[in-house]
């Protein structure tokens, strides 16, 4: 470098637009006015272009099967992704709406057998009326949620497997365990497949495991 006011570091960062705000106040103006610095910048840009050309013509293997594999993997993972690895994170992502939907269905299935009626038992009977409807998808039977219409075909349904905490049942007034065990079992969950319609609305639930 012949120019005494400039150094290579500043010139490279000027070319890369990585100058600090104080440097940006004088370096570009100096380069514009200094023929030597302009030549240096051109040399930097020239080397950079040569590197770019060499990088962009590096040999790479392209195969459309790779993308197809990734798409298949993503689809498969969405269907059977074992949320059991990190139930807390999944619950955050899925939101309480999903948890309540799954819990509701569980309540429909289990509550009539395990929970003694607290009032007149009529809600359970109503729920049982809904349970009698079922949705069949890919050989799997789902208990229809109260507002879903099992007579309508589920368009582009998806199945999401998730852990549903028993504690959420307490929030909606349905106990799956004897009252004395509720506190102890607040952290327990059950694994369920939740059938989702094209709009993301839960249509039905299939309890996978109940331990």
């Amino acid at each position, binding site marked *: 470098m012949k120019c005494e006011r400039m150094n290579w570091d500043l010139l490279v960062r000027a070319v890369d637009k990585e100058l600090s705000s104080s440097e940006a106040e004088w370096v570009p103006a100096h380069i514009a006015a200094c023929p030597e610095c302009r030549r240096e910048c051109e040399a930097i840009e020239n080397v950079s272009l040569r590197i770019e050309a060499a990088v962009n013509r590096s040999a790479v293997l392209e195969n459309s099967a790779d*993308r197809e594999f990734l798409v298949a993997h993503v689809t498969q993972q969405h269907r059977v992704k074992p949320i059991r690895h990190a139930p807390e994170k999944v619950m955050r992502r899925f939101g309480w709406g999903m948890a309540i939907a799954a819990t509701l269905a569980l309540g429909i299935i289990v509550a009539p057998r395990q929970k003694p009626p607290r009032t007149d038992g009529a809600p359970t009977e109503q729920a049982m009326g809904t349970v009698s409807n079922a949705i069949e998808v890919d050989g799997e039977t789902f208990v229809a949620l109260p507002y879903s219409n099992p007579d309508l075909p589920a368009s582009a349904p998806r199945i*999401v497997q998730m852990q549903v905490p028993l504690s959420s049942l307490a929030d909606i007034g349905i106990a799956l365990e004897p009252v004395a065990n509720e506190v102890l079992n607040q952290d327990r969950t059950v694994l369920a497949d939740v059938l989702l319609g094209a709009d993301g609305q839960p249509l039905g639930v299939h309890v996978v495991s109940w331990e």
Partner: protein
Amino acid sequence: MEQGRVLIFPAVPWKIESVENGSNDSRLLLDLYDREQTPLKRYLAMLGVDPETARDIVQESFLKLHEHLLGGGDQGNLRAWLYRVVHNSARNKQMSFGARNTGRIDDLTPAASPVAKDQSAEERLLEQEREQRVRAAMQKLSEAQRACLVLRTQGMKYREIAESLDLSVSTVGENVQRGLERLRELL
């Protein structure tokens, strides 16, 4: 009884964010794949990884990214995340990124690329030779210098390069400057 306890829940369809996010994750993943898989392979190629291994590493990295997204991982800078994973995966396969590699950069056949219509066969040959010289010269740089210069050609700012390589921004700047200086001497 008119209303059972279970029917107190909203009859209005719920917005199930999880599924929508899942779809978004998939779209994000595939968009990133379409945009970045070739640059990632080029990056590995410039670090001396043979094309077949580079293909495997990139594919594995996108599967890891899918896990990352499904697990609710940070979506802040997924491009830098990918380069970091690819870089570390290559390292884990005990590649030295240097002349000891089986896939030496100067052994690689340049990829077929669009050629200017008015470019003669002789000009194309000369261009390929020039590119080969650059690749050979880059092998004489340190791994960090090479990595920084390659990521710089992908349009990354120093901050993003730093994030990709787990370096400080100032170290990235030094690597870029020294790498360019050395290349200028060699070419």
